[in-house]
């Protein structure tokens, strides 16, 4: 693809609002300076909470509108060295907080399959850019499902790697015990290829783990008969759309027919996942977002006095969902509530982790739906935060436990909307996910 081909494609899909920034001059320079490597000449869109030197970074917030990035994230440096071309910055829910991409200062991104539906979030723009075929791949970030849920809604492949698998140097922090950067692609093989490039230890990220990166692409094929797969009964409960359950069950039957051993397992504390997630992630967010004070970068709301500057900057610079989470996070950390909310959530988080570790003694992977329903209508959950949060019920556990998880398309509902199937594996076993994903892709043909 040339610069002009790309730009005219983007112009044709303008109403999807997938991109926040594309800089033609910058893009021309990037096309002239392509490195030799496994991703040579491939276009990658980047969620606008990841630093790319030469482009602005907004986090889809008024707070950072116009922020000039002084350095590139480690993942960006690795992609460029492998020959990829950074196409531009994509839309998201403000500071990656949201499940629909409707909480963006630059307006919502819309679903690539049905424009009247939400893109999903928070990495909505990245998944729409891949879904519409504007780029070869995209990067997103996943804190509670922000790569997998929109991937599911747009019929593409989205991976949340293990905690510590990919460097977060240059990713704007939201909830530091959960955040991971992950690839959004059309195929499982592409996902394996991108992860192989961006994974690995980075001394600039103290949470990145020094674990060898296997050759994912060379090991994609493994017979189904070598796997034992767990199906957690708690993931097929109340509130699931029947067509979603049907498509995922069909995938499991196909897997069994192909020779895999399927066993029912129990993750008994699944129902507490959302509560644990929203307490801890909001607490971490309220702390991480304390840095937006009008002093060092971004928007300043007042010059009256120091305290007035802090309060006005944050009142005018943050949108409604971000404020809601800062309020929730501050509440659960405040004196008198810390033990019963934050402390208790940390303990239940450990219980949930133990549930998973126990199940992984018996199985190589777990298969579930990615979301209870297909993409919902724009505006449907906008005024009901609890309804929006419950959409993450199947995705948050992987972040709570730190394990890798992928969503990949396994069919459509009667309205033609994509259905996503989720594969989870033990930490640093992304290889297993890619192998099972490759088998599942084979069933779709």
């Amino acid at each position, binding site marked *: 693809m040339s610069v002009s081909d790309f730009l005219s494609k983007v112009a044709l899909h303008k109403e999807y609002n997938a991109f926040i920034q594309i800089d033609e001059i910058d893009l021309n320079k990037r096309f002239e300076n392509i490195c030799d490597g496994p991703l040579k000449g491939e276009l990658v869109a980047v969620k606008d909470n990841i630093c790319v030197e030469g482009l602005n970074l907004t986090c889809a917030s008024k707070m950072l509108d116009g*922020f*000039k990035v*002084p*350095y590139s994230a480690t993942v960006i440096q690795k992609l460029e060295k492998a020959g990829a071309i950074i196409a531009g910055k994509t839309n998201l829910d403000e500071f990656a907080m949201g499940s629909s991409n409707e909480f963006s200062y630059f307006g919502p991104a819309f679903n690539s399959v049905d424009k009247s539906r939400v893109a999903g979030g928070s990495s909505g723009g990245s998944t729409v850019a891949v879904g519409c075929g504007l780029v070869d791949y995209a990067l997103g970030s996943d804190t509670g499902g922000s790569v997998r849920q929109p991937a599911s809604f747009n019929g593409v492949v989205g991976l949340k790697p293990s905690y*510590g698998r990919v460097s977060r140097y240059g990713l704007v922090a939201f909830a530091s*015990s959960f955040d991971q950067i992950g690839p959004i692609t059309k195929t499982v093989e592409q996902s394996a290829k991108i992860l192989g490039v961006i994974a690995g230890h980075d*001394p600039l990220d103290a949470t990145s*783990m020094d674990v060898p990166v296997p050759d994912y692409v060379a090991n994609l094929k493994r017979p189904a008969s070598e796997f034992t797969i767990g199906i957690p009964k708690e993931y097929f409960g109340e509130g699931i759309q029947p067509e979603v359950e049907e498509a995922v069950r069909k995938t499991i039957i196909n897997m069994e027919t192909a020779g895999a051993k399927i066993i029912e397992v129990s993750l008994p*504390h699944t129902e*507490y996942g*959302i*509560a*644990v997630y*929203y*307490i801890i992630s909001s607490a971490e967010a309220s702390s991480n977002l*304390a840095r937006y004070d*009008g*002093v*060092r970068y*971004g*928007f*300043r709301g*007042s*010059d*009256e*006095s*120091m*305290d*007035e*500057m*802090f*309060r006005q900057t*944050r*009142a005018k610079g943050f949108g*409604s969902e971000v*404020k*809601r989470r*800062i*309020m929730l996070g*501050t*509440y*659960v950390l*405040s004196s008198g509530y810390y033990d019963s*909310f934050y*402390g*208790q*959530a*940390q*303990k*239940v*988080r*450990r*219980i949930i*982790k133990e549930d998973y570790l126990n199940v992984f003694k018996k199985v190589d992977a777990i298969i579930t739906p990615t979301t209870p329903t297909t993409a919902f209508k724009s505006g449907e959950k906008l005024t009901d*935060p*609890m309804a929006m*949060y419950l959409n993450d019920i199947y995705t948050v556990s992987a972040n709570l*436990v*730190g394990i890798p998880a992928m969503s990949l398309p396994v069919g459509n509902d009667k309205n033609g909307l994509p259905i996503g199937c989720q594969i989870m594996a033990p*930490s640093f076993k992304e290889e297993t996910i890619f192998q099972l994903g490759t088998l599942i892709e084979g069933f779709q043909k």
Partner: protein
Amino acid sequence: MTKISREEVLHIAKLARLDLSEQEVETYSEQLSDILGYVKQLQKVDTNGVQPLTHVYDQVNHLRSDTNRKSLNVKSAVQNAPDTDGTYFKVPQVIKD
């Protein structure tokens, strides 16, 4: 369900250094009550003897050697500041004359 009062909302907003409009105080009082009512279900879980999880892996700190390395230069560091004299960040006067 416990309702989060207007006073509590204002107290939390003060801790978080957020100025809220009248409308926001009302909305957040309702929505936070709703969310906290939901997350309260965690108090049903028996966590006796369970250690809080602060990190998903049982790892120790990664320490690097204490050597000089390149960092941002001053010009790049202050370029995004709302107010600067080119070297320092400028803020409203803290101690009044």
